[in-house]
């Protein structure tokens, strides 16, 4: 293909003062190679020794940055125009914003030594030419914050501690629960009931006593996010809700920190690195959160236990590459992982020039109210007369009252356990089955923990039903307070 290459002024003198050159090539790589063949001095300015484009050289084919196409393998058509555009940057210098730049890790690493025990411990890293002693010192100098010590946070923390990341911060306010043990491999049965961070710290120190662990037993909010995040070099997002994801993203953009992202749902996972200085941020990919209630949490939708293990380990891998400054991190790329079909897809993500926080004309300069942004409204409280506790229900049933027990869960939940004499009508079938409900007997609606049944209750009330009650705490609370032989789940 015959294409034209436009050179920036600074490079013209290496091409006999021409700024528009005609070359041949089927791909960008071939076209540039053709150019460099005629003008070898250009090669030195455009490429590194190992043939990669220098980071401050941008290549556009017509109007597109080749990074968002197929890089140097981008195919060319007859008459295409390749423009080489310099990256222009600099500044007064000194510590950038709140203190940390990834290059500062290297500077801190120079001051550090590894003890003989550490050298033995990390020997499998040290013998790799991509890591070496210098790389291990970088890991030791690095400060990484893990937001969330749950499904993703567990493998993350375990592998980063094992790898020798010198300072690990972990944010979580939760307590270990039986339902966590299916996937949150930081915790054991012994730990149920304890605050997660207490166990995490013990377990991680047992793996690696040479690292420092700082715990933040608090909810991350717009009020504390900047203060907590600013102390760290890399932030890893292991959260499980949209408001916190947007909060972490925005704080990272404003502070100039990379945000190593991972998310899971049932058997699908995603991972990427959002580093606004070099590529897109979370908002460039997802400018708006989904409507509340559309994407269920793990408690509602379920998750294959091993999936966060896979994605969390990938996040740890990305974090280590960022610290070492080696390998190719997922900046500008989104990995889509399907554990069920065992398929991995990579999708390019562009930086959105209109992005309200990291774009060319940003409108967001402060952290906002993320609950509001995500449309999370506090649940309106049900009137007392419309609620019944498990104990009350038991008393009334024992007295022989005729009550219609309406179970609104899914069939597979019914199979785990259900109340004797109940009728199953899953929640989304209720509108079509109103005629099946009694108009004279009192209806007691229940689900797993009382959330879905409360929604159904409101629906029934609006449909004109008045002899209705919601079972507070659902069948789970019935199992605790009335009948322990009923399994909780």
């Amino acid at each position, binding site marked *: 293909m015959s294409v034209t290459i436009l050179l*920036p002024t600074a490079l013209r003198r290496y091409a006999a003062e021409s700024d528009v050159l005609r070359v041949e090539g089927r791909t960008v790589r071939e076209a540039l190679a053709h150019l460099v063949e005629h003008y070898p001095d250009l090669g030195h*300015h455009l490429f590194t020794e190992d043939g990669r484009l220098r980071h401050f050289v941008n290549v556009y084919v017509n109007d597109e940055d080749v990074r968002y196409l197929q890089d140097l393998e981008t195919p060319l058509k007859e008459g295409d125009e390749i423009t080489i555009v310099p*990256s*222009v940057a*600099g*500044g*007064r210098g000194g510590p950038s914003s709140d203190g940390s730049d990834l290059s500062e890790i290297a500077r801190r690493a120079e001051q550090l030594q590894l003890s003989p025990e550490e050298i033995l411990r990390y020997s499998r890293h040290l013998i790799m030419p991509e890591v070496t002693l210098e790389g291990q010192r970088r890991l030791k100098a690095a400060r990484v914050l893990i937001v969330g010590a749950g499904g993703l946070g567990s493998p993350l923390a375990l592998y980063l501690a094992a790898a020798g990341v010198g300072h690990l911060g972990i944010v979580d306010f939760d307590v270990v629960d039986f339902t966590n043990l299916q996937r949150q491999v930081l915790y054991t049965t012994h730990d149920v009931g304890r605050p997660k961070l207490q166990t995490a710290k013990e377990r991680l120190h047992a793996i690696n006593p040479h690292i420092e662990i700082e715990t933040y037993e608090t909810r991350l909010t717009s009020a504390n996010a900047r203060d907590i995040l600013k102390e760290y070099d890399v932030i890893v997002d292991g959260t499980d809700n949209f408001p916190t994801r947007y909060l972490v993203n925005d704080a990272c953009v404003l502070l100039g920190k990379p945000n190593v992202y991972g998310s899971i749902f049932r058997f699908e996972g995603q991972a990427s690195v959002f580093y606004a*200085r070099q590529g897109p941020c979370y908002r460039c990919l997802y400018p708006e959160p989904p409507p509340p209630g559309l994407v269920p949490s793990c408690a509602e939708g379920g998750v294959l236990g091993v999936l966060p293990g896979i994605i969390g380990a990938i996040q740890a891998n990305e974090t280590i590459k960022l610290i070492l400054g080696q390998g190719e991190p997922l900046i500008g790329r989104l990995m889509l992982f399907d554990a069920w079909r065992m398929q991995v897809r990579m999708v390019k993500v562009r930086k959105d*020039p209109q992005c309200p*926080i990291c774009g060319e004309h940003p409108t967001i300069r402060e952290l906002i109210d993320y609950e509001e942004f995500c449309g999370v409204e506090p649940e309106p409280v049900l009137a007392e007369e419309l609620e019944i506790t498990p104990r009350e229900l038991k008393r009334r049933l024992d007295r022989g009252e005729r009550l219609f027990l309406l179970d609104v869960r899914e069939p597979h939940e019914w199979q785990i356990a259900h109340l004797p004499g109940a009728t199953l009508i899953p929640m989304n079938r209720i509108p079509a089955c109103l005629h099946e409900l009694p108009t004279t007997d009192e209806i007691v609606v229940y689900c797993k923990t009382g959330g879905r049944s409360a929604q159904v209750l409101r629906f029934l009330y609006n449909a004109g039903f008045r002899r209705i009650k919601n079972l507070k705490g659902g069948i789970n609370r019935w199992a605790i307070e009335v009948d322990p032989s009923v399994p909780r789940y």
Partner: protein
Amino acid sequence: MIRLTIEQLEAIKRYGERAYPEEGCGVLLGWVDGEMKVVQEIRPTPNVRRDSPHNRYAIAPQELLRLEREARVRGREVLGFFHSHPDAEARPSSDDLEHAWPWYSYLIVSVRAAVSESVHSWVLREDRSRFDQEEILIG
């Protein structure tokens, strides 16, 4: 050597003052006359280093592409760039050195407490070891 008019120099200073306490930046367009760069236009651009704008600047490549194309049509070229150093000297830093391209003129204006002081021009040495100060000709 780089030639600017008094008005152009004043414009650069004002952009620096307006951007304070952040770094302002932009592109210098004009033409080359032998060894002299003759500036015809000063085009400010947004500083896309939103994470650290008080001591870092960057110009979006798409923006530069656009300006370069526009300039080409009018027979002009990119001669260099300007940026401001809030509360610091108009001398290049190690960050300036790390990102610099040869040949271009890098004009730096120091702005202290929102008032501009001096403007100096710098050109990167071929071996990338340092900048050499470039003479600014007014006229």
